[in-house]
């Protein structure tokens, strides 16, 4: 390959250089068939990065104290030098917004462009979860709508009132997502028009619930009492509250909806941490190395890049003081690189484990993996014995009925399958969070709401449950209780909050 002049030699960046690097990176990305939204790269200062940080990556956010808390914490840690700011924040929108921090060197800016503006960007555009659940064209508009709506409510009903509702919604945010039902798409204009309609309509719906909860002696009382409401347990607590809480005002329902929508928007990101970061890391690594091979960057550049790259994918072992679980960058990057290896240079073992993958076009196979999986299924499908050996993964069983922990599998022939299965389960959000569903509303009596926790492996609820119930009761307005259904089918009421205690 003919050597070319490097694009730049110093570490300082300029807008001109950013454009030139971007062109080269885009060219390489296109040669690997990366499909991306158009990019909008924004250069910001460290303070602005902290702002972006504390609004959980939403470019436009409504006001809430918890973001202020986040900001103070980030600010403090940054000032004391306890943490560097993340290199990048990237927003799943169309055009895809990526932030570059002005303090960074040219090499770092190029790394971020490759990582965020091409890696994450293509993941957002192509992965099935993002395609199904998020609408990159409309998200900025929606966030703007949400911000304006919240401000409007604050002016009309007071900041305190709005804050109470938002606090409670945030507490239940993780239970504000539809895991299975498919969503429909809306634009800002439609959203605003429909919001008014919805307000009136929802109130009518609730009135329906009200009517039924007022005891009427003449109606078929027995039949009515036996039917649960909702007739099937519902997983989306916030949705249920938005539609059915008897005492909420229309604007409060809209706030519940806003939090729920935002939770839903972030849900795919929570389910694809390993894949998303792995994918972006794999591509910045591949693209920048290609730049180096083509002679477009200097030795100094590639050394600086490799150093940050190595830090990013560092996985401390379990007994290291800095260990805090598996590093999604490390696992993701290792697996993505491993898929390429299996496609290009499969061993006998790989051929046994991945007959469909060995000796195929790695670009296509990797693209397929990125599009059609989430962490849980991705690990179940692609975690190879080699990766298990390289990372020396092992499984520990923690059973509180036994005195000791037990090592149940390690990186050997008998262990590969179970390690792979358990790691996949570990990334299943359904296992990580307690399974809680709306079970019943007492329509004939005190209108109390019952949630049911379907227990798995005897794991109890955490100590914040009372607090959560307080938030739930604030939204529901009547007594709420939490039942636990044990694996043997027995049910006990574990927490209850009788309204009046509020």
């Amino acid at each position, binding site marked *: 390959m003919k050597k070319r002049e490097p694009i730049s030699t110093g570490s300082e960046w300029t807008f001109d250089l950013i454009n030139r690097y971007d062109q080269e990176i885009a060219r390489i990305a296109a040669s690997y068939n990366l499909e991306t939204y158009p990019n909008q790269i924004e250069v910001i200062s460290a303070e602005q990065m902290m702002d972006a940080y504390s609004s959980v990556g939403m470019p436009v956010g409504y006001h809430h104290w918890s973001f202020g808390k986040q900001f103070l914490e980030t600010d403090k840690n940054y000032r004391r030098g306890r943490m560097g700011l993340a290199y990048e924040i990237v927003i799943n929108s169309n055009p895809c917004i990526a932030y570059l921090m002005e303090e960074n060197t040219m090499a770092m800016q190029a790394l971020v462009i490759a990582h965020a503006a091409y890696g994450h960007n293509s993941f957002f555009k192509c992965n099935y979860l993002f395609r199904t659940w998020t609408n990159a064209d409309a998200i900025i508009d929606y966030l703007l709508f949400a911000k304006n709506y919240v401000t409007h409510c604050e002016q009309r009903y007071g900041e305190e009132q709005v804050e109470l509702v938002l606090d409670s919604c945030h507490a239940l945010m*993780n239970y504000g997502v539809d895991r299975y039902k498919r969503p429909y798409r809306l634009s800002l204009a439609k959203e605003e028009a429909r919001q008014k309609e919805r307000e009136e309509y929802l109130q009518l719906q609730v009135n329906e619930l009200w009517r039924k909860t007022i005891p009427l002696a003449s109606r078929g009382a027995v039949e009515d009492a036996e039917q649960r409401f909702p007739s099937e347990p519902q997983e989306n607590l916030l949705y249920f509250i938005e539609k059915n809480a008897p005492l909420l005002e229309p604007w409060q329902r809209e706030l519940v909806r806003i939090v729920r929508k935002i939770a839903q928007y972030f849900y795919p990101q929570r389910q694809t941490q390993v894949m998303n970061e792995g994918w972006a890391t794999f591509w910045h690594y591949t693209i920048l190395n290609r730049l180096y091979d083509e002679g477009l960057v200097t030795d100094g550049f590639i050394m600086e890049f490799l150093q940050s790259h190595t830090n990013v994918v560092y996985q401390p072992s379990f007994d290291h003081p800095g260990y805090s679980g598996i590093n999604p960058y490390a696992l993701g990057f290792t697996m993505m690189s491993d898929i390429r290896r299996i496609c290009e240079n499969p061993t006998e073992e790989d051929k046994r484990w991945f007959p469909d993958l060995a000796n195929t076009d790695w670009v296509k196979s990797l693209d397929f993996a990125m599009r059609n999986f989430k962490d849980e299924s991705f690990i179940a499908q692609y975690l190879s014995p080699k990766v298990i050996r390289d990372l020396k993964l092992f499984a520990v069983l923690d059973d509180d009925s036994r005195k000791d922990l037990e*090592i149940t599998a390690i990186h050997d022939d008998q262990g590969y399958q179970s390690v792979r299965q358990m*790691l996949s389960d570990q990334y299943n959000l359904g296992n990580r969070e307690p399974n809680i569903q709306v079970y019943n509303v007492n329509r004939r009596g005190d209108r109390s709401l019952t949630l049911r926790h379907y227990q798995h492996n005897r794991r109890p609820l955490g100590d914040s449950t009372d607090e959560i119930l307080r938030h739930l009761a604030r939204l529901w307005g009547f007594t709420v209780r939490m039942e636990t259904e044990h694996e043997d089918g027995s049910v006990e009421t574990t927490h209850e909050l009788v309204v009046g205690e509020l």
Partner: protein
Amino acid sequence: MTQVIDRRLNGKNKSAVNRQRFIRRFKSQIRRAVSDAIAGRSITDVEQGENVRIPSKDISEPVIHHGPGGKRDMIHPGNKEFVKGDRVPRPGGQGKGRGSKASNSGEGEDDFTFELSRDEFLEFFFEDLELPDLVKTKLAKLESQKTVRAGYTTAGIPTNINVIRSLKGALSRRIALQSPYKKQLQDKERELEDALKLHGEYEPFVVELKNEIKFLRKKIKAVPFIDEFDLRYNNRVKRQVPTTQAVMFCLMDVSGSMDQEKKDISKRFFMLLYLFLTRNYEKIDLVFIRHHTIALEVDEEDFFYSRETGGTVVSSALELMHQIIEERYPSSDWNIYAAQASDGDNWNDDSPLCRDLLRDSVMPLVQYYAYIEITTDVHQNLWHEYLNVKKKYPNFAMQRIEGVQDIYPVFRKLFKKQAA
């Protein structure tokens, strides 16, 4: 496809509102931290920000999660010696499966700490004292600065060019650069004159001489009339508005009847006065005088924290103050402020003496004298005597204080005077 946007000029305080919200929400905790901070601070650092610590349980945002217990499988990296079937003792009791290392579940128990900015701190400081907004802004305002001329610089903007200086510079440069050539020119011309007297005009060395003269003339002409190098710009620097100096006397009764709470109230009072003075004066000296039966000049630490017992003779402090003024703070050079805090107890015979001292020797020297009586009992005789002083001097303020919120009225007069 790609658009690069420079957003650095956009406002950076996007989170300011959220920060305010946070502070409002945790007002009570922060207020507690602020009043603790005041107790621990010296009067002169009342103006810094403050680290505030809030127990993390108060500000946690709960989410539903699993508690410890039950059965769970965990995958960890970095296996070294384990094989299948090994048993390992559970680290840290009921903790999570964490291999052989202590669990790090201790995180989250740390308190949440953050820094309150100076403005936020003062906001809380004032809030307790129930100052009206106008006064608050007056106190919180930063020093005004004045731009004054300070010579000339070689760099600046065109509007600041000083023409005379620049041209003077150009002239001297021209003289300096041209003079060697001029001297040579003079010599050559003389030589030429002499040569022409003896030789013909077309003699080769005469021609050469002529050429040299031509060349020198050109050289001289080539020195530019004005060069960038000559430019001088008016220089202006910012300087604090010159104000005179002030001295603040803090007088406090430290007899047995003044308990720590009363001292804290007086401390607030002194701080406020100090803050007020820093707004108006560049340099402030603090003099602490404490007294029981005899008065003593002490440092701040001793002033607030040492305990004395015994009776009370207020006049001793006034005498000492008068003496210090005479010795070190002539009233022609110094603005003298005094603040006296006491619980009002005094020996009956001493009170008239205090009155006379104040009226005849102290009050004529001071700008302002504030007396606060910290008590919930009936007024003591000192109060009645001081009323006489008040009649004569409008710049004498006295106030009975039961809690910190009563401090402000003492200042009203002071600010009124300031506004006039």
